[in-house]
Each structure stands twice: as C-alpha cells, then as structure tokens.
C-alpha cells in the first residue's frame, strides 16, 4: 500500500467533493472513510484509476451519511448536480483547499492542524504526535476548525500570504517523530508552487530548502546547539541548497520582492560561503535593509545588528543594537556576543548568563550558559 500516493491524492479528492457541494466537514469524514476502505481493499484489488476510485467511494459515503429524512431533498439535489463520469476536471481544487485551510477566521494553530489534515492527508494521530499533544485534544481542534470553515464557499481566491504563513508555521515546528513537519512543509510548499505562479511561493520554498539543508548540522549528537559559524559545512545538503538558490534566482528575476525572497537571499548568502569567515556580510546587511523595509519587524532589525557587527565591526553592531528595545527576545544574547567580539569579556560573560535566564528553550539556554561558563573559566585560569 503506497501511503504517499494516498496522501498525495487526498486533497484533490476532498476538493472535488466540496466543489460538488458537500459541506467541508462531511466531505472530510467521507474522504477519511474512503481512505480506510482503500487501505483495506487495494492490496487485493488495486484500482486502475486510484483517484477516480477514491472520488466514487468518498462520494457514496458522503451520500450515505447525509441520507436521512431531513437531508433527503438536499441529497436529491446533489444527485442531480452530480457531473457525468469522465476524466477528472481540469480545475485544481487543491489550491482552493489551501486557501480554505488558511481562512482568516481560523486561529494559527487551527489553520496549521487543518492544513496538515486536509491538504497534507495526515491522520489526526500523526498531527497530534507531531505537536506533542494528546490525540483527543487535536481531534477537537480539528473538528472546531472544520466547523468554523463549514459553509465557506469555494468561489473566491484567498490570500496567498496567509497560506504561506501557515506553511512557514508548519516548517518551523519541525518535530521528527512519525512525521517530520519540516519535510512535510516542504512537500506541501512544492505542491503549492506547482499550482501558484507567485514569486513569494518560490521565495518560501527556496528558504525552506536552504534552511533544511543545514538541519543535520544544527545540533550536536548530544542535542546541544551548534552555531552557524561552527557547523560542519561539508555535511550540508548541497543538492538542496543548489535547488533553493536556483528557485530563488528565478523568483528574484521577476522583480516582485517579498519578505520570503529576502529571507531566502540571506540564507543563500550564508549557504554560499565556503567558510563562516568568508560570508558576504556586506550583502547580508543590504538584504536586511530590504527586509526591514518590507516587514518593519524588530526581530529583523535585531538580526541586522548582528550582520552589521560582522560587516563593520562589533562597535558598529553595538551602535545598531542601542537603537533597539532591549526587551526584544535575544537582545541580551546579541549584546553579549558583540561585547565579546569587542574584547569586553566581563560584560559579555554577565550578559550571556542573563540571556541564558531569558532563553526560550532548553537548547538555547544550555548554549548560552556554556558561553558564560567559557568566558568565566577562561578568565580564572591565567
């Protein structure tokens, strides 16, 4: 049984049912039942047209489910509307599903869950495991999301930016248990890129590919954080980087810059450098300037201060940092790093320890504590 094939077919089957007039939640249930049926019967009797088979079975299940006195009239209408059998329609419903799952009325966590379920074809159990929550909790989250979008019509194109944000959220989660969400996000973004001609979709795909290419080197075998400068560049996935850069260049050539393209450009400059020392920091600062214009995000300006510190020296970096709100996440860590590069080891050690207390996760906290410890113990031993 080819699970990948099933997962790939899920969104288009679901899309067809919804376009035929089925309510989203009911269609989703019907498709899940058809998938279960497929897993049961396909090994013995493989269908000639997998998608056609799924559509037929799911549609039948949907009609069975709506068969009741109150739904009779509606069902008869639907039967009337049923299109004649033939080749699958050329209209791409999957795209509509992306928009539906990123509907503005959904909270980010619901949008993510619904996307993974409806477009990704993952089971509730798999999604729950990936987000480290109980399956019952995730089932509730998904059914609430389905209720929220039930009745939303498939006739208006949604906002690509919202879809991209949802996919980026999935990518950043990145747990790797049964499901690797980073890889899943890349798969979905590839699907989207094949359907939507938009430079920002390419920008996001490029960004994901380049980041993902470095993933194995970002943590040591014991789980501790390895900073970019110390990563083993020989272990980066050069194939993925090359693909990302190619996609990015094609997108940039269209001259419709957006934040994902700019972020991908920065990632590409890091990936391009044969050693950390040879990184083109001047160009990276320029991209951060572009990014700041596009997003006006304080996090971007914080990252820009780091890049300025590399391009023009730690004093320049500290000056750029001084203009920013010092309650920003990671502000203290950046200050510590710049002070260390400026030779002020005492201040740097104090700031690293302070940054460790504010760290948002354990790996980062341990990393920053080690930095403080490194400077403190170096100071003690002559």
């Amino acid at each position, binding site marked *: 049984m080819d699970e990948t094939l099933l997962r790939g077919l899920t969104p288009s089957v679901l899309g067809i049912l919804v376009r035929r007039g089925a309510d989203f939640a009911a269609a989703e249930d019907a498709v899940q039942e058809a998938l279960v049926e497929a897993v049961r019967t396909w090994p013995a009797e493989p269908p000639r047209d997998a998608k056609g088979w799924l559509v037929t079975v799911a549609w039948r299940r949907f009609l069975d489910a709506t068969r009741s006195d109150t739904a009779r009239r509606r069902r008869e209408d639907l039967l009337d509307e049923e299109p004649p059998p033939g080749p699958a329609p050329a209209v791409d419903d999957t795209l509509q599903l992306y928009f539906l799952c990123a509907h503005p009325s959904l909270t980010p966590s619901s949008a993510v869950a619904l996307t993974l379920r409806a477009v990704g074809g993952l089971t509730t159990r798999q999604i729950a495991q990936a987000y480290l929550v109980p399956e019952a909790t995730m089932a509730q989250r998904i059914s609430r999301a389905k209720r929220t979008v039930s009745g939303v019509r498939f006739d208006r194109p949604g906002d690509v930016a919202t879809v991209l944000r949802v996919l980026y959220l999935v990518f950043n989660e990145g747990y790797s248990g049964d499901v690797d969400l980073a890889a899943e996000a890349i798969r979905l973004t590839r699907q989207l890129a094949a359907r939507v001609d938009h430079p920002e979709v390419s920008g996001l795909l490029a960004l994901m590919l380049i980041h993902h290419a470095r993933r194995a080197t970002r943590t040591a075998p014991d*789980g501790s954080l390895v900073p970019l400068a110390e990563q083993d560049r020989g272990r980066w996935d050069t194939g993925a980087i090359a693909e990302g850069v190619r996609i990015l260049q094609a997108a940039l050539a269209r001259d419709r810059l957006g934040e994902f393209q700019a972020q991908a450009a920065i990632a590409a400059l890091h990936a391009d450098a044969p050693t950390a020392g040879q990184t083109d920091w001047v160009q990276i600062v320029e991209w951060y300037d572009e990014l700041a214009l596009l997003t006006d995000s304080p996090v971007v300006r914080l990252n820009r201060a780091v890049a300025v510190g590399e391009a023009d020296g730690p004093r320049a970096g500290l000056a750029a940092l001084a203009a920013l709100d010092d309650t920003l996440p990671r502000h203290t860590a950046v200050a510590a790093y710049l002070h260390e590069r400026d030779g002020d080891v005492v201040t740097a050690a104090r700031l690293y320890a302070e940054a*460790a207390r504010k760290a948002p996760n354990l790996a980062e906290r341990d990393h920053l504590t*080690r930095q403080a*410890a490194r400077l403190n113990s170096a100071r003690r031993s002559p």
Partner: protein
Amino acid sequence: MAKYLLLKHYRGAPAAVNDVPMDRWTPEEISAHIQYMNDFAARLEKTGEFVDGQALAPEGTFVRYDGEGRPPVTDGPFAETKDLIAGWMVIDVDSYERALELAGELSAAPGAGGKPIHEWLELRPFLGAHPTITE
C-alpha cells in the same frame, strides 16, 4: 505503582552543598551535568519508571481573578522572593523507598569541579484516583 513528582527549584529550596552558579562552571562541567540528567531519564525510561519531565523558564507570574469585567491581577514578572520551580520529573515507581533512592541519585548530578551538587529536590506523591475495588 505510585507516581511521584520530583521538583527542582531555582529558589526556595535550601542551598545545595556544592552551591556554585552554573555560569561559573566550565563548559565541560555543564555538559557532564546535562549528560548525567539525560542518562538518568533514559535509564528510568528503560526500567519503565519515567513518566514525564520538563524544564521551566525562571520568569513566572502570579495571576488572580479581580472581579467581573476587570483584567486579572498579576504581580508582574521577575518577582525576586517567590519560590520558583526550575523543572519537574514525574516517576512511576513501586515504593516510596524507590522514589527516595531516585531523588537522591538525581540530586547527586555533578556540578562545579565535577563533584555532586547535593541540591535539594522536592519529592511529592501524586494523589491517586479513588479505587473502584476496595480490598
């Protein structure tokens, strides 16, 4: 089987015997400490005695309902006097003696100079559900 909560404190517990702030250790000492705790959890997973464990951030806030239509009262972050919990581990063991033994072992995690910290851990039994069958 009985479940116990092992609590590690940032503040509020009596001072450890080997009481040196972590940023005064060497990086190798920090690694050894983390390794010890990971090994401890991994071993308990193998024996089937591990339930869950998490580290907590040091900043906490006390929150209280302040009446209909009013925002909850908070005492703000970074309170200096509170008893703060650094993290917990839940274990599921056969006896109180086994729980004590494990808590002692965790308290012996190495710190500065590679010597055990002897930190105070709080051991709290879970209240069980009401049994269906009375013996």
